[in-house]
């Protein structure tokens, strides 16, 4: 008989700072897939138009943006001052689909603990599964919107009359999407960790994202920002994501490797702070929620 027996799982009151359950979360990848499928199918259940809603929403927002910000307010749609002015419709649509992905993922993941407390209070699965699944299910809508945008882009290209270019920057799109996912999930899980105790932040999320949108070049081009405040403006990690995305798609815009790398640093830091906070809170959040 052995005195010491090996146990596969040991639960203690102590928690290691970097115990993030990454491997375990990977083992639950089937669950992530099922959550994504559930989110997507239940989103369009009992609707007539179904996934077409994913297109309708940004389409209308873009039309309104084109009229209000483009025609009435006459804000520039160029990211670099003096650069080629992009067609308003394409410009706003690119910004909108990025932003709707970012804010959508952030809003849903910021509610991870509150909205899943019924399930999480009864059974254990790596809690990180929920925000990851959210990021992917939002990505499906984003994909549909991106296909639509590419369709319009092709129409513009074929009809001519614009100087849209296809450049090697196109390869940056997956990177931009990845960064968007990390940043939105990072912010979301930070907020969700903080809201298990204080609900105040849930109220702030709604208008916070709205304000953040105006601090990002969605409704106007980066060219609008005076040169001397540009550094401050670029601290917002969303800005380089959006401008890089537009540059990659249209072949024109603003790309500064320094600011770009900085936004990656901010993204990664936010994401890891989120992970650490999340894994700390997830152990006992059921007691305080």
């Amino acid at each position, binding site marked *: 008989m052995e005195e010491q027996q090996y146990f596969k*799982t040991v639960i203690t*009151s102590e928690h290691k700072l970097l115990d993030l359950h990454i491997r375990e979360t990977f083992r*639950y990848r089937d669950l992530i897939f*099922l959550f994504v499928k559930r989110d997507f199918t239940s989103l369009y259940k009992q609707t007539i138009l179904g996934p077409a809603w994913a297109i309708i929403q940004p389409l209308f927002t873009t039309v309104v943006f084109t009229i209000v910000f483009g025609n009435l307010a006459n804000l520039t749609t160029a990211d670099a001052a003096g650069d080629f002015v992009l067609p308003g419709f394409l410009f706003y649509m690119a910004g909108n689909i990025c932003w709707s992905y970012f804010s959508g993922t952030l809003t849903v993941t910021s509610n991870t603990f509150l909205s899943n407390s019924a399930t999480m209070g*009864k059974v254990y*699965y790596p809690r990180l599964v929920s925000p990851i699944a959210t990021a992917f299910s939002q990505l499906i809508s984003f994909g549909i919107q991106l296909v639509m945008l590419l369709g319009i882009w092709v129409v513009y290209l074929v009809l001519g009359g614009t100087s849209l270019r296809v450049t090697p920057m196109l390869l940056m799109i997956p990177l931009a999407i990845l960064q968007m996912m990390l940043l939105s999930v990072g912010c979301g899980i930070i907020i969700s960790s903080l809201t298990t105790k204080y609900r105040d932040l849930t109220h702030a999320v709604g208008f916070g994202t709205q304000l953040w949108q105006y601090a990002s070049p969605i409704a106007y081009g980066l060219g609008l920002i005076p040169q001397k405040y540009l550094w401050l403006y670029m601290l917002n990690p969303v800005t380089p994501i959006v401008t890089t995305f537009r540059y990659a798609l249209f072949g024109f815009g603003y790309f500064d490797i320094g600011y770009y790398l900085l936004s990656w640093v901010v993204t990664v830091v936010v994401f890891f702070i989120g992970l650490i906070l999340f894994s700390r809170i997830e152990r006992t959040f059921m007691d305080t929620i």
Partner: protein
Amino acid sequence: MEELMLKIDSVSKLYKLGQIGGTTLRDELQRKMAKLRKKEDPTMRIGTKSHQKGETFLALDGVSFEVKRGERVGIIGHNGAGKSTLLKLISRVTAPTGGVISMNGRVASMLEVGTGFHMELTGRENIYMNGAILGMTKKEIDAKMEDIIDFSECRQFIDTPVKRYSSGMYVKLAFSVAAHLDAEIVIMDEVLAVGDMAFQKKCLNKMNDVSRQDGRTILYVSHNMSTVRQLCDRVVVLSHGKVIFDGDVESGIDRYMDIREETSQTEFDLSGKRMLYLPATVLAKMTYLRLLAKSKAVYAAGERIEFCLRVHAEKTVDNMLLRMELKYGDDSPVGTAIFAVLGAISKGDTVEYTLSFDPSLLASGNYKALFVIYEMNEFGSYNDLDAVCPAFYFTFEDGRNIHWDLNHWGHVCFPDLRAVSRELVEEARFPKEQDAEKGV
């Protein structure tokens, strides 16, 4: 060597009392500020003393026990004893404040059936969903899919969204998923309380099979002692966050029922035990009971239970009768003794009756007696005057040298099953068949 599956080592869980969650950041900041300035907490309710703030509650206090492979352990205790908290810790819903829980293998918790069911998805999709939440991979679920559908008795509706299911179907489906998990440790918290009787029985049998054949370990929490008896081979009794008993099922249940302490009592004040269905003013009431010639309410075979019952009459009653209903310790009915004629009692009198009862038909165990006095008029219709439950407790030891299987045998041992004659016959056939052959 029996493999250790679960080891719980001086585990404790501390909850903060009062306002924990749900406070706002502003409240918390105000509190912090007040603390800094050494003033009274402004968010505190008026009238509460400051030392009450920050009071804590130990839901579990140094709980330790070990569970081996294939054991079926029932965890029982009164409300608030810490059963659910313990299961929550084992199933990792929340973390312990102190101590270590070590486990060998996957844990499937059925703290609530249908966890993670989504109304819009079909039964089949929900099986995948539920299985995945409980830790199975898609491949494992595929392999079990047919079994799960068969067991759930819902094949006809399996591709219909579960929002169209009846609640019974919903529960059956949910239990089926959980029961077919490949987990080494299965945790159940009164999930069997749902579903119809036939399905409950099926579930219990399934859990029994699962434990015996696959050597799975089961932790079962319930207030239903008969299911604990059927399922478990060991019982851990919790009380106020501590383990007060760990051992065989019957003694554990007795301990839980506190019967051992009750049987040391021989005098009972009945005035506070009135049953609720009676009118507020009763014509006559039982006030006091004393067991005679006993220092403990423990009776052996051959002894009669003799007691003295005091009745006080508010009004004159002409023909008063007494009925005694016997219940087992877990409140399951055993039988009724009718009736002792107490006769007439006049207004304002208090009368002491001496009565006796022969318990020899009972099987060994702990019983309680419920008394009803009633009045019968000349037309044979009767009217309950007073009822007390329980009037008294007693333990009976039958002295029979057999293991009495309560679950299937009940609580009464009938006398005299007699073999009347013995005859050798040629063929083991039904007589009718033989007659039919002769007839043709």
